[in-house]
């Protein structure tokens, strides 16, 4: 507790040049709110949310394809809860469901196996969104599908990798003085993956855990290391320098790097993963889903995701756009920055 007291005292009393720190990961955004951290920081320290919520960075074309699939006969879209409510260019999976389509929420991609076994005549399509952390689970799912010769499961992929997006943010903005690097992603990638970015932009990266004290420590490091191109692993209980090679090898078996479309950013080279050609029989039409025509004019999700606008700066925030009536993905996902700012009344 003494350490926590020292950390909070340092962060409360900090009076140096303004620090703008981006938490890249959506789970960090949620953990920062849950721990009430903004209220503990000096006004000279500003936290901005980055593009690390997988649901929030998914483009409209992908949601449109999902809703299309949900309406097809003998087809059921299977997904994590958050994605049910995100609107594409016209509607969400929930809307499609209410209109007679079929979509089902699960807690693990592996839940799709029992669904598929019970209804062999139905094609189950998993909405495979996620970052480096989630992709190995899809690889495991593919292992099982092949081993058990299950043919009525497919993936609609929107898989992203983090470094290219961080690089893009550094290039576009210049205001960020340090990155709270994602904890879960780093378990797979290893903390060394941020070294080239840190050196290229002379910015510090702290790989952080998710408890309050872990986050406070990571924030302190970024302030102390301002201007230095260094990576500090503040989450050594789970993250190593090299990451989880076994998981990466499993991913590499089924997926290959590709250009990917990010909401608010556009298409970035080498920022996603797609099924290799030899496994395309498991694909439900993922390639080429790049357009991002949103249903709602005025929605600033794109700017919020890259940290160039605070959620409260969006004209729709808290008015037309609330968790009850989300206009953009950032207000839907429990990890979305708008959702977190709204429910925790952050400003």
């Amino acid at each position: 507790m003494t350490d926590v007291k020292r950390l909070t005292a340092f962060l409360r009393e900090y009076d140096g040049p303004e620090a703008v720190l981006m938490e890249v990961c959506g789970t960090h955004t949620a953990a920062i709110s849950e721990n009430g951290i903004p209220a503990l920081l000096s006004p000279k320290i500003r936290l901005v949310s980055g593009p690390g919520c997988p649901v929030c960075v998914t483009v409209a074309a992908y949601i449109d394809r999902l809703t299309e699939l949900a309406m097809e006969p003998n087809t059921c879209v299977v997904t994590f809860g958050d994605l049910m409510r995100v609107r594409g260019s016209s509607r969400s999976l929930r809307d499609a469901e209410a209109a007679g389509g079929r979509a089902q929420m699960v807690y693990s991609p592996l839940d799709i196996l029992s669904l598929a076994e019970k209804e062999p005549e139905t094609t189950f399509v998993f909405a495979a969104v996620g970052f480096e952390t989630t992709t190995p689970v899809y690889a495991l799912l593919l292992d099982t599908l092949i081993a058990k010769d299950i043919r009525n499961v497919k993936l609609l992929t929107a898989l992203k990798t983090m470094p290219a997006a961080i690089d893009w943010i550094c290039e576009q903005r210049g205001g960020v003085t340090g990155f709270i690097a994602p904890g879960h992603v780093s378990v797979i990638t290893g903390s060394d993956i941020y070294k080239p970015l840190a050196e290229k932009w002379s910015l510090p990266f702290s790989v952080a855990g998710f408890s309050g004290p872990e986050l406070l420590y990571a924030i302190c490091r970024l302030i102390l290391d301002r201007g230095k191109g260094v990576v500090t692993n503040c989450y050594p209980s789970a993250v190593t320098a090299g990451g989880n090679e076994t998981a990466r090898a499993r991913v590499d078996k089924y997926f290959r790097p590709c250009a990917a479309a990010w909401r608010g950013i556009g298409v970035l080279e080498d920022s996603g993963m797609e099924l290799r050609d030899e496994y395309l029989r498991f694909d439900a039409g993922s390639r080429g889903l790049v357009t991002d025509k949103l249903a709602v004019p005025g929605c600033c999700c794109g700017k919020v995701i890259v940290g160039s606008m605070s959620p409260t700066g969006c004209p729709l925030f808290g008015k037309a756009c609330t968790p009850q009536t989300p206009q953009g993905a950032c207000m839907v996902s429990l990890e979305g920055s708008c959702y977190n700012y709204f429910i925790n009344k952050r400003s």
Partner: protein
Amino acid sequence: MKITLAHGSGGTSTGELIEQVFAKAYANPVLSRMEDSAVIPGASRIALTTDSFVVSPAFFPGGDLGRLAICGTVNDLLVSGAEPKYLTAGFILETGADTEDLEKIARSMAETAEEAGVMIVAGDTKVVEGKGEIFVNTAGVGFVAEGVDWRGPNCRPGDVIIVSGNLGDHHAAILSRRMGIENDILSDCAPLTDMVGALHRGGVAVRAARDVTRGGLATVLNELAAASGTRFLLEETLLPAAPAVRGLCGLLGLDPLYMGNEGKLAVVVAPEDAEKTVELLRASRYGENACRIGVVEAAEEPGVLLITELGGQRVIGPLFGEGLPRIC
């Protein structure tokens, strides 16, 4: 507007549906108070409430649909300050439902009714085509003694907020069962009869009470704060939850503040009665983990604020969206 699962969550979508459809259709001065029971004048003062139970699975660790159907309605009457007296029971049975299951449920209802000291005095059964599920509706009548007035608007600055035990047990038990996660978590499904009786007998100055069900403590306290125009200030370190429930929440990214119970009381009392309330609850059946969790403050903007373990602040809103699958 189409009905979606969010409308059954107990959170704000449910609130909107109630407001837009039922409150509009049945508008009357009693219903529009939106308390857990309608307290109405009669031979003496009468409390009246109804609830439907559609939990899946119907049998779960620590309880079943029948026990739930009694506790849900009895507890709504109790937290309105009433002494529950009579219940009705309506069954909607899908074709294919098992009569053995139905008997178990009926027996469980009878046992729980006896424990809660209420009589089931009317009933109804309908059958519809379906997949063999059983749904139950119960309505209940209770009598409110002279001078008892437990309502949200009564909460005032200085009052103390108390809960009768660990948060989230019922929700965690149902979720574990559905997801095939093995653990020792049992539903806390129980009538609050003994606890509420102790508060009456002890002469505690209760301002308002709620049973913590769907939407969790966060939603319940937001309702009370909004009704009284005050701010409820909670301390994270005081919030009670069983380690197994905390573990499950951590695993699934859930928050015990938003997880439902079926046998827990949230009660706001006058500051001078706070200590006595905790003692009375702890000495009552199902109340052994009762504790004080925060205070009511004056505020320009009503709501619920949590002082986190780190000493930070977090605004606790009501449950938005559908939260989790239906649990009662």
